[in-house]
């Protein structure tokens, strides 16, 4: 039974409980209020940010790279394709701990010749070390058997660029390589992740964008471990362009074969379209190694010293030497300084004044009485010394400029060198001296300051072959691109068409005449070829006491000082369809070394044309 006292005590007790509860509740209220504010901030104020954050968490963009565009010849022959290579790698952070597995790999799986790879610094990208690229069938089979004892080593299949003809098209197609710092700065990581291969030279570089196509994107939902759950959306990649080359496989092969790893270059083009039919620079390299689709070394040991990566056909600057004589002769006719029958007495040397410096011709005793035709056929230096001295440098350079000397041809390759066409201003600016008549005299035989690339020489010669018309030289003939039609680059106006014929006839006689410098090419009933030999001096022969021949005997002891052999030609006349320029460095004789290559190319090309 409860009493009043009980009630009073209860009352007091409850009172105290209530007030003390109030105190505790006050403290908890701080937590409650701050909690409510925080929850409102999260769900109302910053909701958008957190939604984005949540999506960023779970959605990743996986780029879809289209397979690189193919490069083929007109007949469909594959020149550059993509193959799946199987490579072995190990994660960089696991490398230290798995040395025994790597050794096991070398012992049990990889071929003997891979031992060399071990010595190379491993290429690191994306936290991976590549242990072996492009496994052979045999290695792959061994790996499948052994893989359980090497759990840290993994196999990756990757599409890589492969050139079935290996070295043959190296200087045209070029190669790919890992993206570098400079390229990194200008390209987005979405298009080009850090381990992507990008065109470095050749067509691979100049058509990089078109060959690569546009990267697609796959939006993937992933969990916290990066496991793909499902695809949310997909933007398909744009199909890359396939390129069709203008080149002729047979000519390309012959040119490579004839140059036989000597330093030199061959350019052959169709003067009526500008389409390049052969472009070979020797020595060459194997782009597949650099593309990662083959293992080994890209260059042969013998050619290591000879700059095999240097594209001599478009970047090599050589004195045009006697191959310039037809142009100078044409200018003389056009300027009416000479006629077909103007005679110069060639005594073996030329002097501006009595007692002045002797400009010696290559033939010690001279060619005797020389007219224009004979001057070209026998390559009389004295004739052109005299003609050049009368023409003056201003007329010579402005005339040669119209043929493309001193210009780049604008071919679709990078690293084309601009040939040098000296003028008075050029010499003042680059040499810091005034122009002397002696300089002009040297230009008359294509020596001195003037220099040409094999490609430019071919383009210039195509004007003579084509009665003045010069077409833009091209490697790609592709109806996917808008610029596949022949493009007229420029047209040299020859005032009197007869002058052109005189020059052409003289050039034909270089081969057909018994006294022609390239008469060794002559064949009864063979194709008519117009050509001009050249022998580019590397060291100028200035000793006035020795004969040219005597002095050169001393010079040629050093192989690298020997003259370059040149031959510039076209055929068949009267309807030429191929201009060929051949340069063999230190080859000495244009007629014996360079000319036969050109002849073979022109002949083979006629067979090809008749077949198709």
């Amino acid at each position, binding site marked *: 039974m409860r009493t009043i006292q009980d009630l009073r005590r209860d009352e007091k007790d*409850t009172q105290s409980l209530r007030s003390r509860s109030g105190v505790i509740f006050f403290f908890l209220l701080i937590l409650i209020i701050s909690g409510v504010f925080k929850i409102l901030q999260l769900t109302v104020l910053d909701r958008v940010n957190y939604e984005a954050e949540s999506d960023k968490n779970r959605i990743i963009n996986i780029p879809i790279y289209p397979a690189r565009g193919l490069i083929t010849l007109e007949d469909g022959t594959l020149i550059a394709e993509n193959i799946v290579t199987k490579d072995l790698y190990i994660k960089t952070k696991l490398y230290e701990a798995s040395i025994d597995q790597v050794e096991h790999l070398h012992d049990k799986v990889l071929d003997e010749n891979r031992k060399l790879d071990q010595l190379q610094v491993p290429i690191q990208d994306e936290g991976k070390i590549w242990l072996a690229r492009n496994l052979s069938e045999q290695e792959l089979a061994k790996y499948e058997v052994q893989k359980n004892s090497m759990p840290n080593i993994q196999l990756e299949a990757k599409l890589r660029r492969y050139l079935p003809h290996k070295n043959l098209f190296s200087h045209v197609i070029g190669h790919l390589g890992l993206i570098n710092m400079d390229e990194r700065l200008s390209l987005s990581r979405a298009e080009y992740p850090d381990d992507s291969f990008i065109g470095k030279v050749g067509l691979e570089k100049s058509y990089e964008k078109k060959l690569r196509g546009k990267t697609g994107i796959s939006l993937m939902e992933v969990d916290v471990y990066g496991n793909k*759950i499902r695809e949310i959306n997909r933007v398909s990649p744009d199909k890359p362009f396939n390129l069709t080359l203008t080149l002729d496989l047979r000519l390309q092969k012959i040119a490579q074969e004839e140059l036989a790893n000597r330093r030199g270059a061959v350019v052959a083009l169709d003067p009526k379209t500008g389409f390049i039919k052969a472009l070979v620079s020797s020595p060459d390299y194997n782009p597949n190694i650099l593309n990662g689709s083959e293992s080994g070394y890209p260059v042969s040991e013998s050619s290591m010293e000879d700059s095999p990566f240097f594209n001599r056909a478009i970047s090599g600057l050589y004195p045009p030497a006697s191959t310039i004589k037809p142009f100078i002769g044409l200018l003389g006719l056009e300027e009416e300084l000479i006629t077909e029958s103007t005679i110069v007495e060639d005594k073996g040397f030329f002097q501006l004044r009595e007692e002045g410096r002797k400009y010696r011709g290559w033939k010690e005793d001279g060619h005797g009485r020389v007219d224009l035709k004979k001057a070209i056929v026998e390559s009389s230096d004295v004739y052109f010394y005299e003609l050049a001295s009368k023409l003056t440098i201003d007329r010579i350079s402005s005339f040669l400029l119209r043929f493309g000397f001193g210009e780049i041809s604008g071919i679709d390759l990078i690293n084309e060198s601009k040939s040098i066409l000296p003028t008075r201003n050029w010499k003042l600016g680059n040499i810091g001296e005034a122009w002397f008549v002696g300089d002009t005299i040297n230009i008359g035989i294509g020596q001195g300051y003037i220099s040409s690339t094999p490609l430019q020489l071919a383009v210039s010669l195509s004007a003579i072959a084509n009665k003045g018309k010069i077409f833009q030289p091209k490697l790609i003939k592709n109806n996917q691109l808008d610029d596949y039609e022949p493009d007229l680059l420029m047209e040299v106006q020859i005032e009197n068409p007869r002058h052109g014929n005189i020059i052409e006839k003289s050039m034909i006689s270089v081969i057909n005449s018994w006294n022609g410098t390239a008469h060794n090419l002559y064949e009864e009933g063979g194709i008519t070829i117009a050509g001009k030999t050249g022998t580019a001096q590397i060291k100028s022969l200035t000793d006035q006491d020795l004969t040219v021949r005597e002095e050169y005997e001393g010079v040629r002891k050093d192989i690298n000082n020997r003259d370059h052999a040149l031959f510039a030609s076209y055929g068949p006349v009267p309807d030429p369809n191929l201009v060929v320029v051949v340069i063999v460095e230190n080859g000495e004789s244009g007629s014996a070394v360079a000319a036969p290559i050109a002849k073979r190319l022109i002949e083979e090309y006629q067979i090809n044309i008749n077949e198709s």
Partner: protein
Amino acid sequence: MSNRNPLDYSINKPLVTSFNPFSYLFKDITLVSALIAVLVFGLAMLYSSSGQSFSMVMRQSIYVFVGLIMMIFISHLKPDSYKNILMHSYWMGLLLLIYVLFNPAEGYTTSRWIDIGFFQFQPSEIIRLILPLSIVAYLHRKESKIRLEDWLYTTLAALICSYLVFEQPDLGTSIIVFTSGIIPIYLAGLPYRVIAAYLGMLAIVSPFIWSSLLDYQKQRVLTYFDSNVDPLGDGWNIAQSQTAIGSGGFFGKGYLQGTQSQLNFIPESHSDFIFSVIGEEFGLLGISCLFIVYGIIIWRIFKIGLSAQSPFERLACCSLGFIFLLFILINVSMVIGIIPVVGVPLPLISQGGTSIVVHLLAFGVILSAKRPQL
């Protein structure tokens, strides 16, 4: 009418028109319905947050069921009949805390878990509720007024438990254990002069305690409060749970549609961080509903407590009410990132059999304070 004492129970007995078996069995239908609502919701959330693991939900359901039976059983006992057991259960809790330090379950870096074969539990989960109940039982073991030394004994008891948890090491939980011990002591009427004396002593002693702490103990305290040091990766966890709640917005992403939780971005999403799953899938609306139901539970606890007839019952209810509220607040504050991470589950919802059963036992004590309406 008559000269009978107006306090005579039989006269003031309200008119009972009908006998309701439910209100007899559950004693407080509102409280029990709210509890069951939260428990069922908790099971549903567990299903979502555990990667839709049915077996985990089944396991939890068994604990819920056992807990509810025990709750109803206790609610029909007279408090006097179990007061002594409650008081002495302190020693059992103490024993477990000591035991866990020497015999922790394997596979953890800390000594928090006890492994008894078919399941594992944390003694600190139990002590969080055993400690305040035993303190309440001790303080009101007799009808007489509470003596001065009783305050000291109970405070000491709380300190010992708190220290043992600190040694596990688990600074956060040790603070919570101490708080849940000190709440009933304060509510029981801890005299303010004693509080002043405690604070004075603390001011004098704390430098000595600090210097007597070993280096690793100091380090432990410092890292706990230093937000720059993040040894457990708590920062990432909090960022993920905030992202989950924030991206849930007002209506949420829908049940089983939370990307943060379904794709495992939320750590411990089925236990301590289950609140962020609720936020992500049901949004502000769902959180508010949950809080309302929690609010009803707390309101009923205090309602029962303040109208209970013995001081033991009143104190037990109010203490448990505050501790329940405190656990909710600490868990939610931790998940939304306004306090450091502590191992406190969301009451009645987070996965964990011990926590559920102990909480339901405490609700049994609360319900027993309500007189049956006959």
